[in-house]
């Protein structure tokens, strides 16, 4: 069921503006999107920034901290980082920032590729309730959700983005 | 001791009786069937209401593990297992350590068994010295010592000439040669029936040919020597067919099957369950069906337990390393009843008892298996409806391994009487 208050496209536009303004003078930014929502957003941002091939995707399944409780997910996708992480300025992109654990896992994974100069985080929505000291550099919207509710980014066949709310 | 057994259902297949009859025992024999003999004063009366009164079971193969393998089992435990299973007479193979090829060993074994006052023990003597297949044993001396036949147990005879001479020699005295139909070389490293299941599980196979080629050899030698042969543990459909034809031809042949092969197949190996490791191996469904058909039409004369106690150290191993064999004395009755109930006429009780008492007694030349006046007072009184679950801890035998662990079986012994004495009563 689409969330009637959230217009994902409008939020994306807001996020993209923030990112472009802030990074206008930064050299050789690399985009890394966290599957799946972050990857779609990174694809979009890549058309608006000059990344010149520095576009990657990351699956944090091997770095999550809940492996002992939940095991390996069945839909692990290969991470693809086609640029040199050493010394890179990376904008990590995710759809929803929540506890911060996914971001921590993504950072750990990036550090196994090399030593980046800088990592920034862009999230479409921040739903609060952080469990780790993690903050986003760019956020389009902040909101609170009820316990058990999950915000899920969807991409239609024509590429249009929208949000739905799942109940666990 | 004068015993009166009343209200029981007497089933005596040898005399064609299946009726409510009382039984009177005196001086170790059956004094009368039906009406009490004149002046009979019972010392003890057993009320067999709801129970079957049958001749004691005669098991054609039970390994007692003495002498030599006392760590696996002893006469005390195994004879206790026998009487708890209603077995009043059993034949034991000669593959002890040392092998039963000397009269002194046989005498000692019989003496020890007799002193326990439990089941009657009839040893088979080794056909060749040490079972090595080279020189003949003193068959006459061994018979005097108490052997009821001669066998190679599971050891093949490599030299056909030796087998032929052994059969000629046995025939001279009228002794029966008990043989496993197993070629010396084909499938000698096999551990499972050669077929799709063994192929899938990666287990080396024993082909049916190993049995049929041996049967052809045995029958040819029988034709030439005139010897009397009892075939032990037939396992295949092709084997049963050959036995059927040989009997029709008039060869002096009898044949038994293990209670395990009557019910189980190679599929029961499941996930490499070493309790299903047996010699001969459990074969396919078609083979099992043919064995059952053979029992029905008399091609297969008797069912035995093939009781082989194996301890944990030799079973809790990968399939190929485990020792073959299963405990069976305490399951023989139930397994025979199960077969007859499934395949036989009516409730099958008479048919089942026939295969585990009068038929084995007769082909082995043993007293017993019948309930007429003057016959030995060896009885198995059992509850045909009682259900029990096979549990290792509850078995009297020291052999706790059987593929039937956990199975619920029907038919349980209530009293076992040997030579007129009640040797076992279930509490």
């Amino acid at each position, binding site marked *: 069921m689409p969330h009637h208050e959230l217009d994902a496209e409008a939020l994306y536009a807001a996020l993209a503006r923030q990112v472009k303004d802030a990074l206008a003078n930064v050299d050789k930014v690399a985009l890394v999107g966290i599957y799946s929502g972050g990857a779609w957003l990174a694809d979009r941002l890549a058309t608006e920034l000059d990344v010149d091939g520095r576009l990657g995707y990351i*699956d944090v*399944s*091997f*770095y999550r901290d809940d*492996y*002992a409780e*939940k*095991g*390996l997910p*069945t*839909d*692990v*996708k*290969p*991470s*693809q980082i086609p640029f040199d*992480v*050493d010394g890179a300025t990376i904008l990590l992109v995710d759809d929803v920032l929540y506890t911060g654990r996914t971001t921590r896992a993504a950072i*750990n*994974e990036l*550090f*196994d*590729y*090399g030593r980046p100069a800088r990592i920034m985080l862009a999230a479409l929505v921040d739903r609060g309730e952080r469990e780790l000291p993690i903050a986003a550099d760019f956020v389009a919207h902040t909101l609170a959700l009820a316990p058990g509710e999950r915000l899920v980014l969807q991409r239609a066949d024509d590429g249009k983005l929208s949000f739905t709310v799942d109940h666990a | 001791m004068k015993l009166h057994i009343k209200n029981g259902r007497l089933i005596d297949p040898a005399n064609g009786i299946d009726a409510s009859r009382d039984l009177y025992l005196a001086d170790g024999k059956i004094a009368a069937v039906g009406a009490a003999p004149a002046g009979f004063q019972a010392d003890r009366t057993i009320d067999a209401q709801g129970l079957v009164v049958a001749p004691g079971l005669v098991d054609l193969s039970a390994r007692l593990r003495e002498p030599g393998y006392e760590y696996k089992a002893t006469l005390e435990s195994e004879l206790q297992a026998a009487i708890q299973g209603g077995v009043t007479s059993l034949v034991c193979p000669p593959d002890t350590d040392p092998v039963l090829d000397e009269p002194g060993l046989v005498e000692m074994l019989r003496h020890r068994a007799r002193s326990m006052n439990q089941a009657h023990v009839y040893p088979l003597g080794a056909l060749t010295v040490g079972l090595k297949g080279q020189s003949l044993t003193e068959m006459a001396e061994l018979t005097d010592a108490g052997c009821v036949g001669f066998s190679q147990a599971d050891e093949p005879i490599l030299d056909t000439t030796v087998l032929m001479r052994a059969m000629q020699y046995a025939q001279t005295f009228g002794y029966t040669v008990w043989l496993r139909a197993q070629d010396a070389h084909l499938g000698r490293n096999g551990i499972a029936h*050669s*077929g*799709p*299941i*063994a*192929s*899938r*599980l*990666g*287990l*080396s*196979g024993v082909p049916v040919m190993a049995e049929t080629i041996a049967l052809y050899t045995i029958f040819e030698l029988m034709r030439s020597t005139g010897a009397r042969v009892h075939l032990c543990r037939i396992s295949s459909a092709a084997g049963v067919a050959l036995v059927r034809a040989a009997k029709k031809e008039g060869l002096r042949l009898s044949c038994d099957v293990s209670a395990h092969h009557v019910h189980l197949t190679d599929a029961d190996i*499941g*996930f*490499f369950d*070493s309790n299903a490791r047996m010699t001969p191996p459990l074969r396919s469904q078609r083979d099992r069906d043919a064995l059952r058909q053979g029992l029905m039409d008399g091609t297969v004369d008797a069912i035995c337990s093939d009781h082989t106690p194996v301890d944990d*150290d030799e079973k*809790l*191993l*990968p*399939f*190929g*390393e485990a020792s073959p064999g299963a405990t069976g004395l305490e399951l023989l009755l139930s397994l025979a009843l199960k077969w007859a109930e499934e395949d036989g006429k009516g409730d099958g009780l008479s048919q089942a008892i026939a295969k585990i008492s009068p038929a084995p007694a007769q082909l082995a030349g043993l007293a017993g298996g019948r309930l007429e006046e003057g016959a030995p007072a060896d009885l198995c009184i059992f509850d045909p409806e009682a259900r029990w679950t096979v549990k290792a801890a509850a078995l009297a035998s020291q052999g706790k391994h059987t593929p039937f662990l956990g199975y619920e079986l029907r038919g349980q012994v209530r009293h076992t009487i040997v030579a007129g004495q009640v040797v076992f009563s279930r509490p």
Partner: protein
Amino acid sequence: MHNPQLNKNGELQHLLTIEGLPKAIVNQILDTASSFVGISDREVKKVPLMRGKSVFNLFFENSTRTRTTFEIASKRLSADVINLNISASSASKGESLLDTIDNLAAMHADMFVVRHAQSGAPYLIAKHLTDTGRSHVHVVNAGDGRHAHPTQGLLDMYTIRHYKKDFSNLTVAIVGDILHSRVARSDIHALTTLGVPEVRAIGPRTLLPSGLEQLGVRVFTDMREGLKDVDVIIMLRLQNERMSGALLPSAQEYFKSYGLTTERLAMAKPDAIVMHPGPMNRGVEIESAVADGAQAVILPQVTFGIAVRMAVMSILAGN
């Protein structure tokens, strides 16, 4: 009958054989493996999934190559690895298999990778662990007798998927000593589970087990006929012992009829791939020109083998 590989929730608890594994689990292993393939190209060739876990390699049968790939896979998952070559130690002193397992489990093993000469040995181990309240310890079968070598079967499938993409229209031939081969059995189960329409076995009568047709395999004794229009050829290694068991007269005669030569390879499709579990006997089952040729994918198999083993171990360790 309860499948001993799966726990009550239908999740993989042990990997003992491919036979009876749900297709979804086979696919999950292959899919997860593709995520591990890229790890070798990174700076840090490790992921932290099995950090702090102990993997015991229990090899009752010698095999340096398989043991090494499991060791590499374990270390890439950040696990601690202990190698035990049992043939040299306790077993020869008479310690039973289960006693050995009890001793090692007391040292807090999290996973046993077991290779044994007896078919079914890993099942005995898995059952014993469950019966003694240690069902959190996982068993990976690295080859048991003639029965199964599931990680080899899986890496062979990964290789085929990598080069051929779609299993549903392939013809795959397995050539050689199928009678004694656990690799052949695992490959057959994997191919049929993944829906390969035609699986062929090629070899002399003495090396073909009975009942192959019941496993869904077409049997050929003529190599040229068997290789006709085949997409994948899996060559099996011929061991020297076969010559002494009256199964084959000589290696030369075997090569004459069943060796994969360039000429025989031409019977298959032009884009057919040639696989071999290794180690190869050049000039016995395969000609050097083919082994080193463009259609051979034998070295990639080894690379994929590490990723597939990482996938198996990480899926098990998480269940």
